[in-house]
C-alpha cells in the first residue's frame, strides 16, 4: 500500500516538474492519434464503398447477332460451373430493347422510327458475395473476348482500377504518414520524460545508489507516460468521433464506426506513452552516474 501511495505521489511530482512538456506530450499524442484515427475512418469508408461496388459489379457479355441458342446455352452452363458465379442470365435482343425503352421513358418514341433492333443480346453475370476478386473477373472476361459469338465484354474495368488505386494510395499514405506521426509522438514523449528525469536527477541518483530496484525508480515515469498516452488516446477518440459525426450528419452519410475504434485508439495511446517512456527512462538512468 505504501509503495502504491509512493508511486502515485512520485507520478504527481513528475507531472508537476515538467508540466509544460507533459501537456505537450498529451497534445502530441492527441494530435497524432486524431490524424491517425481520421485516416483510419476514411480508409474504412473507402473500403466500404469498394465493397459496395464489388457487390454491384456485373459482367456483361454482348453476343454477336449470329450466336445460336446452343452456343449461348453452352456459354451459360460454362459460367454456372464456376464457383464464384451467382447467376448468368440471358437477355434477348427484344428484352434489351424493352429495357432501353423503359429507361428512355417519354423519349422512347425515338425508337419508333427504327426499322430493326440495334441492341445486341447479352449474358449478364452476377457474382457471389465474398467470391469476387478482380483477377477472376478479368480472367472470365478474357476467356470470352476471343469468342467469335461474342461482340464485346464489359465490367467497368476503369472504375475498378481507379478504386483499387485509391485504396492502395490511402493504405500507403496512412502507413507512411502514420508511422512518421507515431515516431514524432514517441520522440516528444521521450523528451518530456527526459526532462522529467533531468529535473529529478539527484533524487534518482540517490535512489539508484541506495539500492532501489529498477522498477521502483522507473515506475513513476512509466505511470506518467502511461497516463499521458491514455489521456491523449481518449481525447483523440472523442475528437475524431466528433468530427466524423459532424461530417456524417451535415455532409454525407458515412459507414458505421467499428465498435472497437475508440478502444483501439486509446490502446495505441497507452502503448505509445508507455513505450516512449520506457525507452527514454532506461537510457537516461544509465547516464545518471
Amino acid at each position, binding site marked *: 500500500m505504501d509503495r502504491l501511495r509512493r508511486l502515485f505521489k512520485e507520478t504527481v511530482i513528475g507531472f508537476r516538474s515538467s508540466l509544460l512538456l507533459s501537456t505537450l506530450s498529451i497534445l502530441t499524442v492527441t494530435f497524432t492519434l486524431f490524424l491517425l484515427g481520421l485516416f483510419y475512418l476514411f480508409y474504412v469508408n473507402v473500403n466500404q464503398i469498394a465493397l459496395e461496388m464489388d457487390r454491384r459489379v456485373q459482367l456483361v457479355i454482348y453476343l454477336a447477332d449470329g450466336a445460336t441458342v446452343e452456343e449461348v446455352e453452352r456459354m451459360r452452363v460454362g459460367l454456372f460451373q464456376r464457383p464464384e458465379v451467382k447467376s448468368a442470365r440471358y437477355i434477348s435482343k427484344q428484352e434489351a430493347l424493352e429495357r432501353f425503352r423503359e429507361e428512355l421513358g417519354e423519349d422512347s418514341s425515338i425508337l419508333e422510327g427504327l426499322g430493326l433492333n440495334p441492341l445486341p443480346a447479352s449474358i449478364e453475370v452476377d457474382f457471389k458475395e465474398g467470391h469476387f476478386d478482380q483477377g477472376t473477373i478479368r480472367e472470365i472476361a478474357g476467356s470470352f473476348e476471343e469468342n467469335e459469338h461474342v461482340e464485346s465484354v464489359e465490367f467497368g474495368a476503369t472504375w475498378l482500377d481507379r478504386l483499387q488505386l485509391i485504396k492502395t494510395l490511402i493504405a500507403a499514405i496512412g502507413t507512411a504518414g502514420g508511422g512518421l506521426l507515431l515516431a514524432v509522438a514517441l520522440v516528444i514523449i521521450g523528451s518530456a520524460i527526459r526532462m522529467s528525469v533531468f529535473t529529478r536527477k539527484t533524487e534518482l541518483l540517490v535512489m539508484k*545508489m541506495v539500492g532501489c530496484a529498477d522498477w521502483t525508480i522507473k515506475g513513476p515515469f512509466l505511470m506518467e507516460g502511461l497516463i499521458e498516452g491514455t489521456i491523449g488516446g481518449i481525447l483523440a477518440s472523442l475528437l475524431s468521433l466528433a468530427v466524423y459525426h459532424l461530417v456524417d450528419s451535415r455532409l454525407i452519410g458515412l459507414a458505421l464506426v467499428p465498435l472497437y475504434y475508440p478502444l483501439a485508439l486509446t490502446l495505441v495511446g497507452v502503448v505509445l506513452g508507455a513505450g516512449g517512456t520506457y525507452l527514454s527512462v532506461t537510457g537516461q538512468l544509465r547516464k545518471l552516474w
Partner: protein
Amino acid sequence: MIAFHEVSKRLPGGRFDLRNITFEASKGELTLITGPSGSGKSTILRLIMMEDRPDRGKVVIAGSSSDTIRRREIPVLRRKIGMVFQDFKLLQERTVAENLSFVLEVTGDRKIRARSRVMKVMTDLGLLPMQDAYPEELSGGEQQKVAIGRAIINSPLILLADEPTGNLDADSAAEILRLLKEIGMLGTTVVLVSHRQDLLKGIPHQRIELRAGGIQQISRQSIQDMTTHG
C-alpha cells in the same frame, strides 16, 4: 570485504581505464585511492557499486562476485554500500531529516523504525539542531555531514566517498575525515577517493596510488608507523 583480482576495464573508445588491478580492503579498514585525474579512481568506485563490470578479472564485494551477480541482485548489494559525493547530492527541497528519511522511505523501511533510525543518526552526527533546515541554509561541512548521515543510515558494510573534502575548507575537511575514521572504527569498510595523497595524514589507512590505470604503489600506514615517524 572488497577484493579486486587482476581487474581491467576499458573505456568505450577501447583505451584501458584500469589495467590489471589487484587489491583488497578488509572489514573496518580505511582505504585511500589516490591519483591524478583520469587515473581510474572513479572507475574503481563504479566497479565496487557494480555500475560497471570488469572486462577482465573479477571484483568481489561483500561476497558478491562481478562475474556471477545478476542484474536484479545489484540493488540488494547496493543496500550494503553507502556513497558520499564531492558535491553532496542532497535533495534541495527536503529538510535535513527528510533527506535522511528519504533513503529509508524509498527502500521500503517501516515508518516507526525509520524515524528512530533518523533520530539516532542525527544525534550521532550532531545534526539534531539543524534537522528542519534545508541544504541551502547549511555550510559545506554541514551538508557533507548530512550526506554522510544519509550514506550510513542503512548501516552499510562499505562506505564509499568520492572526493568528500573537495569542496570544504580545512576545518570542515578535518571534521569530515574524523567522522569517516570513526565510522571505520565501528566496522564499516571505508574507501575514499581523492587526488590528495596526504588526505589521511595521521590516520592509519591503506593507500593505493594509481597512475595511468595501473597501481603504482600500495602502502599501509599503521599507528606504529605514525609514532615512529613522529
